[in-house]
C-alpha cells in the first residue's frame, strides 16, 4: 500500500514516455487540411507560355507531388510515382519546387515522367503558400480545390495503400462531382 503511489506514477510515466518515443518530432500537422488550396498563376514546366492556375485542376481529385531535381529523397519515391501513373485513373500533378527547367526536365527524361502536368515554381512561391518545409511532400486535393491530405517525406507503397488510395476512392465516389 505504501508503494502504490510511486509505482502508479512510474507506470504512468512509462506509458507517456513509451508513446512519446513513437511520435515523429518532425511531423508538423498542416493547418491547410480541409482548407482551399492557395491561388496561383505559374507556368507549366514543359512550356513557359502555358499558364496554370488553381482552376486548371478543378473537377477531379488530384495528387499534388512537390519535388525537385536536387532533392535526393524525391528519387526514392520516384519509381513508385511512375508505377502509379500507369493507372490512368490517378492524376499525379507535379509541383517543381525551386528548380531550373533544364535540371527538372533532364531528371524526368532520365527517370520517367509520372506527372500529368508539372507546375514550375522556381521561386518557391506556391511552395510557401502550401507550407512546404521538406520536399518531397504530397497533397491530395479534391475536385473543388480543397486540400484533403498532406504527406511530408517520400511516399511508400504502404502509405499509398493505407492513406492515399482509400482517400482518393472516397473522393471519387462522391456524387455530383
Amino acid at each position: 500500500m505504501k508503494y502504490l503511489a510511486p509505482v502508479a506514477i512510474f507506470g504512468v510515466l512509462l506509458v507517456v514516455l513509451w508513446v512519446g518515443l513513437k511520435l515523429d518530432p518532425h511531423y508538423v500537422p498542416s493547418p491547410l487540411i480541409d482548407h482551399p488550396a492557395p491561388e496561383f498563376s505559374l507556368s507549366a514546366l514543359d512550356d513557359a507560355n502555358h499558364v496554370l492556375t488553381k482552376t486548371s485542376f478543378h473537377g477531379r481529385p488530384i495528387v499534388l507531388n512537390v519535388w525537385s531535381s536536387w532533392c535526393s529523397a524525391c528519387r526514392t519515391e520516384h519509381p513508385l510515382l511512375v508505377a502509379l501513373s500507369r493507372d490512368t485513373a490517378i492524376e499525379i500533378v507535379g509541383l517543381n519546387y525551386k528548380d531550373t527547367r533544364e535540371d527538372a526536365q533532364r531528371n524526368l527524361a532520365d527517370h520517367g515522367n509520372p506527372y500529368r502536368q508539372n507546375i514550375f515554381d522556381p521561386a518557391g512561391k506556391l511552395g510557401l503558400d502550401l507550407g512546404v518545409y521538406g520536399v518531397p511532400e504530397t497533397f491530395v486535393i479534391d475536385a473543388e480545390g480543397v486540400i484533403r491530405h498532406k504527406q511530408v517525406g517520400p511516399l511508400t507503397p504502404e502509405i499509398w495503400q493505407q492513406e492515399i488510395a482509400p482517400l482518393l476512392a472516397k473522393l471519387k465516389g462522391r456524387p455530383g462531382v
Partner: protein
Amino acid sequence: MCKGARGWAGLLLLVASLAYAIDRPLNFGDPAQQARYEALLHELRCLVCQNQTLADSEADLAQDLRGEVYRMVSAQMDDPAIIAFMVKRYGDFVLYRPPVQRTTVSLWYAPAFLLVIMVLVWRRVQQASALALQTPLTAQEQARLASIMASGTAASKTPEA
C-alpha cells in the same frame, strides 16, 4: 601551451565563421523596421531545424522565410498580420511561444500545477513530523528509549574497559 592556444584560436575562428555564415544581408534604412524585423525572426521557428528560430537557422527554408518577413515588414504590414501569414501556412508550430489553447493547456499550466502539488505534499510532511515531535512517548516507548540509551552507553564504554 602553444597547442592549447592554437586550439582556442581555432575554436574562435570556428565560432566567428559560424556567426558569419548566418547571412544578414537584409537591412532596412529605418532602425524601427530593423528592430521589428529582428524581433519577428526571434519569434518564429524554422521548420527544418526545429529548435532554432528563423534568426539562428541557416536552412534554405529559413532564408526564404526571412526574405518573406523582410518583404512584409517593408510593406508596412503589422506584426499580428505577419504572424498570421506564417501560422496560416505552417500552423501554430511556427511560433516559438505557442498560444494557450486546448492542446497546449498542459504545456502552459502543468509546471504551476506540479508546484502546487509539491507545496501541498511538503506541508503534509512538515505537519506530520511536527506532530510526531509534539506527541509524548507512551510508557512502552519510554522503556525502549531507556534501554537503547543504556546499551549505547554500555557500548561506548566497552573499548575503554
